[in-house]
């Protein structure tokens, strides 16, 4: 480029950009009424200072029983509006007392789930690099293909068709957000299992990546479980669906299979990957159960509706427990499909029943007759 060219270049047009202005509009610059009012003042925090979780969650979903003075401005054709309390048979003198014990909000949701994704990715990558799948004992791959694969359907069905609608239906933002997080835990876990299945199809000779479908749809071992899950997806009362899932199904079927079988049986089969996967799902299920325990205990102890609520929950317990014990019972043959009997079905079931009994007692309910030894 010659000097002449530079001289001939037209003057640059000045860019139009906003000019910074010193406004001194920061906290503390002046004293005036409310200049120090630096907390959300429309709810009572559980402790002295509100947690971030409370600040970002409480009252975002309004309620005519709190501050919503003009009422809901849309209704369904039948006249129900907003978040009708009638969408469950349970009642509360104050639904807003429930706070998620896991305090899930945007930051925790992504941190926790991304951690699990990374953890699983690393474990699987390491197993592939170490050729660890070739150390699996004969027959174990079949169990993983059929039964661990079948479990993905359970998690998917509950996440998509129990937790997801429930988070529309409950009356407060705190309950609904907790249920929404439960939904994505389940859905992620289902995908984790099925994508693990895909990895195994690529790395384990003879691994049948499609076996899970027929196992879930047709294998007699799984039909009671499938029936239990399908019936859960058909419940219109959100609290009943959550109760029958988190209080009844999870201990009696979920923990029984995940912890009582897969996590006990895998290591002696040379498999350290599957328990990691199942453990992540189990930890999520435990989080959901903490929320369920908190919610249903609150309703069980309600000063006005506690007795009526316990009666309703007892009915639910009596209705759903036989289904889940039956589903668990039908899984028994899986325990016999591995050569090393490191854990007996009866032991796993006894532990699951004990955890179920503890939860039931904590809620002020009575064990159904068939469970009373």
């Amino acid at each position, binding site marked *: 480029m010659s000097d002449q060219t530079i001289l001939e270049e037209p003057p640059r047009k000045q860019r*139009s950009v*906003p000019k910074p*202005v010193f406004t001194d*509009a920061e*906290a503390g610059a002046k004293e*005036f*009424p*409310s*200049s120090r009012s*630096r*907390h*959300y*003042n*429309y709810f009572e925090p559980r402790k002295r200072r509100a947690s*971030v979780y409370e600040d*970002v*969650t*409480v009252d975002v979903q*309004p309620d005519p029983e*709190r*501050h919503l003075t*003009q009422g*809901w*401005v*849309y*209704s*369904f*054709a039948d*006249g129900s509006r907003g978040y009708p309390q009638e969408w469950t048979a349970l009642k509360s003198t104050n639904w807003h007392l429930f706070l998620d014990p896991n305090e899930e909000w*945007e930051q925790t*949701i*992504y*941190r926790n*789930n*991304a951690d*699990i*994704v990374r953890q699983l*990715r690393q474990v699987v990558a390491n197993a592939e690099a170490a050729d660890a799948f070739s150390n699996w004992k004969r027959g174990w791959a079949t169990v993983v293909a059929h039964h661990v694969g079948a479990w993905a*359907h359970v998690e*998917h069905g509950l*996440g*998509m068709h129990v937790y*997801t*609608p429930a*988070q*529309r239906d409950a009356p407060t933002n705190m309950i609904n957000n907790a249920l*929404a*997080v439960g939904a*994505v835990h389940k*859905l*992620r876990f289902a*995908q984790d299992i*099925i994508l693990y299945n895909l990895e195994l199809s690529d790395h384990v000779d003879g691994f049948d990546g499609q076996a*899970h*479908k027929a196992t879930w*749809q047709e294998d007699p071992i799984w039909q009671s479980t*499938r029936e239990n899950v*399908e019936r859960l*997806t*058909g419940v219109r009362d959100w609290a009943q669906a959550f109760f029958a899932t988190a209080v009844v199904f999870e201990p009696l079927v979920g923990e029984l299979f995940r912890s009582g079988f897969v996590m006990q049986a895998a290591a002696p089969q040379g498999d350290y990957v599957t328990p990691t996967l199942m453990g992540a799902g189990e930890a999520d299920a435990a989080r959901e159960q903490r929320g369920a325990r908190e919610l249903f205990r609150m309703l069980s102890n309600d000063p006005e509706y506690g007795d009526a609520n316990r009666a309703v929950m007892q009915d639910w317990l009596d209705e759903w427990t036989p289904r889940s014990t039956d589903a668990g019972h039908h899984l028994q043959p899986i325990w016999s499909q591995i050569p090393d009997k490191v854990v007996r079905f009866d032991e796993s079931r006894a532990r699951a029943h004990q955890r179920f009994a503890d939860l039931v007692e904590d809620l002020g309910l009575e064990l159904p007759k068939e469970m009373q030894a």
Partner: protein
Amino acid sequence: MSRASITKAHNKIQELSWEPTFVEPVDKYPTDYTFEKAPKKDPLKQVLRSYFPMEEEKDNRVFGAMDGAIRGNMFRQVQERWMEWQKLFLSIIPFPEISAARAMPLAINAVPNPEIHNGLAIQMIDEVRHSTIQMNLKRLYMNHYIDPAGFDISEKAFSNCYAGTIGRQFGEGFITGDAITAANVYLTIVAETAFTNVLFVAMPGEAAANGDYLLPTVFHSVQSDESRHISNGYSIILMALADERNRALLERDLRYAWWNNHAVVDAAIGTFIEYGTKDRRPDRDSYAEMWRRWIYDDYYRSYLVPLEKYGLTIPHDLVEEAWNRIWNKGYVHEVAQFFATGWFANYWRIDAMDDTDFEWFEHKYPGWYDKYGKWWERYADLSVKNGHGPIAFENADYEYPHRCWTCMVPCLIREDTVVDEVDGQVRTYCSETCHWTDAVAFRGEYEGRPTPAMGRLSGQREWETRYHGRDVGEIMQELGYVRDDGNTLVPQPHLDLDPKKMWTLDEVRGITLNSPNVLLNEMSPQEREAHIAHYKAGGPAGRPAPEPAGA
């Protein structure tokens, strides 16, 4: 993950769903739409194991910026005029976000397509993200901005203020009524695809020009999720179009959803961008220019019009009329003027427009000063405490407006006002389309066919009616819009924080609030006819029509 492995993974997760055999699927949320001939599409192939780390990374950037803003003393440079409007905006927006999460099962239940279910479920947790990240942004503002009053009462004020109620339909409309009307057409096809552009792209640009770079950080992070949501909505509308029986419902819902979104979102965001800014560079785009680009060109011409090839009738007339209201009928200016008229019932401060603002408005909207300039000068005069009441109760050549029963924004374009007796009540509407929405669309029958799933408009929709005949001082105490000295009001008609210059309950006691609708219903039919004729002859800028000679 590579694209190939995403496709492979996405194909694999389709194996998770199954057809139940032990129970019939329960219709949890009613719809009049039918989806028996639905093809399957999820062009974005969403998988959770790539989704969570991606969102975590986005979060890390947001939180990093928040740290940086505090360390860099961002609030020494933010414009108070801008931040005050955030008290309104950030009280409203977390509710539509969380409502969108709640809306997802409505769509999942209605659409028999597992591939779409997966995308909708991911959208659900996106929306939880958006709601809580926005609440957290507001929390930061409350902690670091000079005047926290209004942020501190945020969600309560959203629930009990007339402005919050207007905003609330942009949220309630997602979760109630016919599942597809709500969760697909209103939420995704119109609100997300059209209006998040001005909400989450145009508005953050204005925030940055006013010294606030946190709003852009958070809202661009939010907006980057929207393309997936738009894709979900598009798949569902294509499925709906596969069944001829849905066509009339889709056309009904597009008309309602387009018009309501325009009425509500343009009112709010137009006001924030035009009247909440101090950036008066002549070449800074006006809201009308932004609207033309983001809504008219990017949405209407590029997204909506192509749907015609599927045989759908697009509401061209309503798109043109929305533009007509913005460009020729001064919609945004009328709304901003109304917000300022009602300052006494707000929970944020509104300062008067000054000469610099006048010059910019005149440049962008020729003729603006003749219509609105005098009123804003009067507003400035009456913003100083001097023994008079708020401007709404003083002579300012402004007739307090009737409220639109449907969109709840007042009937500000006076000549377009429609009056009708509906459900035994004389109601006012801002436009023919809002009248149609209430009287025709939200009913149990549409064009001769039963629509049993269609929702209804409900609630105490007129804020003024709730407080009719009440003392303004009492109302403000009841609403809780009083500062911590127990006397100074949260809202102010200026930005001066000198306690001696701030308005208190003392200046609003003894003033009675009346509801135009109650008074209208008390009139005889002849009085009402005369009143409405006079009302419709008024404007612009709320100016009452001249009284006829000899009156």
